[in-house]
């Protein structure tokens, strides 16, 4: 499947951490997903991979809050509602301890965004591991993102499309788990592709 995304920008920006805390409780779940999971590919150069953390650091100059928002391990999360609650609680608790930060105006506004996804069928279906590896070699960046990262939204955040298929269609749960352990926080999509292919390659050559 080839996937593409367009980013829709929310109408109402927030300028303070106080407003950010409220919006975090009320924004669409698609925005929570976009600024945490989907932003992973956009932050090779910045200190944090979460948009929320990056804004807290760069626009609000609240480094401790940024760190707390960034260290939430997305792979421990099983629902976006849970993730929303965790993030919103972090901001609420931080503002309780640092009330002076609540209404201080940020250097730049935060815009809640969400991704619109378009998928088209492409390539040949895979029936074996070598065919899967060949397909992954020919996936564009956004499609790789769709199968490995965005899939977590569809699959209730627990795994990725490749691991899911390997476990349920090829009945190789150990291999599926190895793929799912890849650290997608710190990889570029090209690195991610190489990591996936290396694991699949080692299995095929056995």
């Amino acid at each position, binding site marked *: 499947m080839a996937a593409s995304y367009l980013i829709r920008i929310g109408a109402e920006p927030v300028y303070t951490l106080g407003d950010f805390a409220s919006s975090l409780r009320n924004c669409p779940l698609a925005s929570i997903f976009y600024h945490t999971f989907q932003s992973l590919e956009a932050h090779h*150069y910045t200190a944090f991979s979460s948009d929320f953390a990056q804004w807290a650091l760069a626009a609000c100059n609240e480094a401790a809050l940024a760190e707390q928002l960034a260290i939430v391990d997305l792979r421990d999360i099983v629902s976006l509602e849970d993730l929303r609650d965790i993030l919103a609680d972090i901001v609420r608790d931080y503002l309780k301890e640092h009330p002076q930060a609540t209404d201080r105006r940020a250097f*730049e506004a935060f815009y809640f965004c969400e991704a619109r996804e*378009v998928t088209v069928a*492409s390539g040949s279906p895979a029936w074996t591991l070598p065919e899967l590896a060949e397909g992954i070699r*020919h996936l564009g960046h956004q499609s790789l993102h769709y199968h490995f990262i965005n899939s977590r939204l569809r699959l209730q955040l627990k795994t990725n499309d490749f691991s899911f298929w390997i476990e349920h269609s090829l009945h190789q749960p150990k291999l599926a788990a190895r793929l799912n352990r890849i650290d997608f926080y710190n990889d570029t999509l090209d690195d991610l592709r190489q990591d996936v292919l290396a694991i699949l390659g080692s299995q095929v050559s056995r």
Partner: protein
Amino acid sequence: MSTAEISKTMSATEVAKPVLPVLQDYAAIVGEPEILELRELARRLAGRRVKMVNSTAVGGGVAEILNRLVPLMEEVKVPTRWEVITGGEKFFHVTKAFHNALHGASYDGVPDWFETFLATNEENRRRMEFDEDFVVIHDPQPVALIAERPSGPQRWVWRCHIDLSNPNAHVWDFLRPWVDRYDASLFSSPQFTRGLRIPQYLFYPTIDPLADKNRELEPEFVRSVFEQFQIDPARPILTQISRFDRLKDPVGVIRAYRLVKRYEDCQLVLAGGSATDDPEGAAVLAEVEEAAAGDPDIHILNLPPWSHVEINALQRGSTIVIQKSLREGFGLTVSEALWKKKPVVASAVGGIPSQVIHKLTGMLVHSVEGTAYQIRFLLANPALARTLGENGYQHVKEHFLLTQNLRRYLVLFLILLQGD
């Protein structure tokens, strides 16, 4: 060298006009999978037609993007017609005032100006035919073409290339009712949006890595261009490429250069031209020439619009590229410099912070003095300058290349067909 002399020299430059690249040529840069997926997306739009409308065919970032994008849309069989509105001197004087006002400058127009704006839009609307499936209107100049849009499934999109974060209320209140009639709007940065009721999408502008302005050049050619303009390649060269426009602050760049010059024996190149829709260009050029008078190390190059390969060479041969704009739409010259792995010192305005991540892909600045300070810092730390350039190249490759623009348009049209 005078402007006339430069124009003469440039016309005499023998640069073979290359054949336009085809989509497959980009596979070497973005990878074969990206190209295959673009073709697949386009197949889903088979039979749909597009019209793009803007206000100038040459000069400025919009025309450059359309020059490269439209042929690729055609190639993937999404027939695209690009039309340019026409208007008299008064119309472009009014739209220039609108442009500045939307960027936050004061506005002292008279009611007659709004009438001129609407009358010219109406004349163009009557002249053009709008029977395509998608109509994309670029920037405010042709925004009122949507008057009396035909009923039916046709989709109208407003592509705003400028920073609307702090517009003059009088001008924006006049334009907004037109914008609200569109089906979707496209902005270069979330910070540029105005909380519209219609969907607002993020559309980064992009550069073409295979265009004359960005393609690889032989080092001998780069040297020959510097020789032609009598610029000494042995001393540091600071360059700003932009049209002669007050919002690009060319006089501020000269002031920054003079601060650097107290410590470093450097040269300054200010190279650009004027877009056909910018009547202020000549006046600004005169101000710049006056500010630079008497300094042989300041090279002011008013280049004709076909000087892409020379601009490419000037960027490649520069030590540091500057973009000290006071306001920006997106500032694509920054991406052009980053693509050439150049260290960039640029103002934190408009879309520039999307391209320059401070201390990671370049240096962001907020004043003349700050510009000079960061230039001196990079001249003293060439290893860091190289790292910034390498990071910048990768950043552009991931976000700001033409193939991504093509993809965004194809996805937008599919989303509009589905109904957002």
